[in-house]
């Protein structure tokens, strides 16, 4: 399997992992009809940013985001990337906590949440410490293992659909575009890691677009499956709509009682891969920006994992987790805007300068 495809799988895994739990809920909060419009608008906004990002990165072959910012100056790298790493640490902690809540709710009711946290953090940190190549290779296996499960639960939920719930299909005004939650939704995107992973591999926009279409189809299904099963009025009251929707499906010939178990399991696999990528990015940023000779990347990974663990442990309740998670994804939106655009501008300026220099 070539590295390009592996990165493609990680791209999909990261998107799906982020969007299982909170994404549908946010969409339902934004509009009462024509949910697909929100998904598509959100998609278009993100693909534009991805386009800018890929274009910007193409100016700097064999370099990752950290190298590019270091080129701009040590101070710029420090100011931009260290807060980014910190917000990623918070995201990891909250993300794992939120998944732990879901796990406890659906199939480990008697187990204390800290012990689940320990397990998830241990595997995530171990994966991150083994480096990017290991993450990429294992993600391919996990992708092909989980995708059939995911497709199975999506297909199996068809039997509970009430197609009347799809209406009204059209929402005439686009006022949700001005809602700040619409931009919060973007916090649930995972294209930034591309810039850290592609220093050895050149990715084309066409390839990412292909992955993106796949992600969009899954997004639409995540939005519409709970909606079609429960209807607009009841779906807004659910805390984890997708999980609840899966829970409602009952197939006679399957030996398992709940379909949720499949969704829950696929969540874990994807979450571990996603968070280990983020941890790896943190380790890389810290090591390259701070340049402390004695501190290896694995030390940074362990340290930030411990911080994230403590954060996940001290959040008092689920409502707080969700609030913090929203704040955290809000902060990430800032980086998702500024990193691609600044790289593109810097690359353009630098490239133009070089052309002038060569001509003269």
């Amino acid at each position, binding site marked *: 399997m070539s590295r390009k495809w592996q990165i493609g799988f990680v791209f999909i895994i990261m998107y799906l992992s982020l969007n299982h739990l909170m994404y549908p809920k946010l969409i339902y909060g934004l509009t009462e009809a024509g949910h697909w419009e929100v998904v598509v608008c959100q998609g278009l906004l993100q693909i534009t940013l991805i386009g800018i990002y890929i274009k910007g990165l193409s100016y700097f072959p064999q370099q990752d985001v950290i190298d590019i910012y270091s080129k701009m100056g040590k101070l710029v790298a420090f100011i931009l990337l260290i807060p980014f790493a910190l917000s990623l640490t918070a995201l990891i902690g909250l993300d794992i906590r939120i998944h732990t809540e879901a796990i406890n709710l659906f199939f480990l009711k008697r*187990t204390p949440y800290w012990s689940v946290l320990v397990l998830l953090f241990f*595997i995530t940190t*171990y*994966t991150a410490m*083994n*480096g990017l190549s290991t993450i990429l290779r294992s993600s391919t*296996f996990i992708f092909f293992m989980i995708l059939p499960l995911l497709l199975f639960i999506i297909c199996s939920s068809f039997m509970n659909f009430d197609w009347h719930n799809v209406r009204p299909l059209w929402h005439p005004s686009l006022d949700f575009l001005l809602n700040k939650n619409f931009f919060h939704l973007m916090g649930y995107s995972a294209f930034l890691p591309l810039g850290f992973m592609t220093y050895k591999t050149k990715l084309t926009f066409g390839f990412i677009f292909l992955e993106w279409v796949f992600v969009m189809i899954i997004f639409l299904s995540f939005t519409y499956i709970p909606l079609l099963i429960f209807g607009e009025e009841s779906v807004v009251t659910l805390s984890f709509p997708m999980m609840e929707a899966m829970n409602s499906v009952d197939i006679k010939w399957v030996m398992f*009682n*709940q379909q949720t178990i499949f969704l829950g399991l696929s969540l874990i696999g994807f979450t571990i891969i996603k968070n280990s990528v983020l941890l790896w990015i943190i380790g890389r940023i810290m090591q390259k920006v701070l340049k402390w000779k004695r501190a290896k990347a694995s030390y940074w990974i362990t340290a930030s994992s411990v911080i994230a663990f403590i954060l996940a442990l001290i959040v008092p309740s689920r409502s707080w987790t969700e609030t913090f998670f929203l704040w955290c994804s809000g902060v990430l939106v800032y980086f998702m805007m500024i990193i691609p655009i600044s790289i593109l501008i810097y690359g353009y300026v630098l490239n133009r300068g070089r052309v002038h220099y060569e001509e003269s």
Partner: protein
Amino acid sequence: MGDLVSDIQNLFSVQGDFFIGKEVKDKTAIYIMGFSTLIDLPKSNLYVRQIAAASSSVKELFTNLSDKLDTDINQLKKAILDGKLVIISEGGKHNAIVDPVSRNLTRSVTEPQSESPLQGPIDAFVEDIDINIGLIRKRLTSERLCHCSYEVGDLGSRKVSMLYVKGSVPEDLIKKVDQQIKQIDADIETVDDFNRVFGRRRFNLVSHFFQTELPNQATHSLRTNRIVLFLDNYPYALVFPHLLWDMFSPSIDRDFPSLVAYGLRALRVFGVIVNVLLPALYVAIISINPEVLKIDLALFVSESRQGIPFPALLETIIMVGLVDLILEAIVRLPKSVGPTITMVGGIILGQAMVEAKLVSTLLVIVTTAIVISGSVVSGIPNSLYIRLLRYPILIIAAIYGILGVFAGFLFIIVYLASLTSNGIPYTAFRMNRKEDAK
């Protein structure tokens, strides 16, 4: 030079099997020496006498006997240790190293012991390194097949051979392996010692080599861009690097129609997954997550465990451990005792334990599935490490239920994906010719 004979005699004075014989030719005494345990003495003596009778002078005798003439004492010493016959004339004027009639210490090519090729050639590698390389050369008659030989070790030198097909294995990989073998300074006693040369971590489950007894498999590996290593006195070819896919697709499969071969491979992958996950799933479903099963199934499961005094984890570990003990015992025991153990073990595990209500009937079925599925992969070391993998998952499953089964499985995937030998990942599906597989 005059004391060459006595020097050598002193050197080997403590060796009971060192012999020194005296012959006279043209009034000059010549001394014949060597190890009687390595050399067939009467035949070798006869050979020397026949040559002596045909030669006109002492010098001619030496020239007729050998082309290794008049070497120094160190080489003579080494030749004696290697099982050669050393002949020295009186006064140490001439000496020669002669290839004697050796004692037959190697077995001839026989059937494989640890692999059973179904519908394939049934010759197997033996201890003698030259015969093994010959078996490969016979199958791969190409000038591109390269053979590098080394002698490594401190106490006893051991022959190591590296075979590869030129142009198919990446050049830098050959260079790296070549350097690594040349740098060996300790004795290579076992394959594990040899493994360490290639950077083996201490607590690593997976070897850098895929071991095979079949020349056909080794030749196939050579064709698919691998390096094959041989150790003297070790009847297995060591295929480097070892890839995960090796255990699922032995070259024998290729004799079947490809659809059948794919089916067999899928079966093996399924077997491994069952072997690793089934006991853990049993424990998870019994003790932590009974609610995931449909109600009648859950009732059936709990009914089958009625009256059993052990918790599910202990019950499973007892059963799985016993099965592993039986497997280990059968390997060690002579063939005449093996079936008895199997029978007694089978009766005790299958019937007596259930009737005594020590384990549930369901667990007996699970155990049977484990035993059968554990041996579907090719290569004994592979099936051993897969057997070992199920214990950690079992323990995590007892704590976290279904989540533990899945997390443990993920952990194993990540662990296997993190393994590399000389930069080539263990989980690569095949080795590319130009660049290392990612």
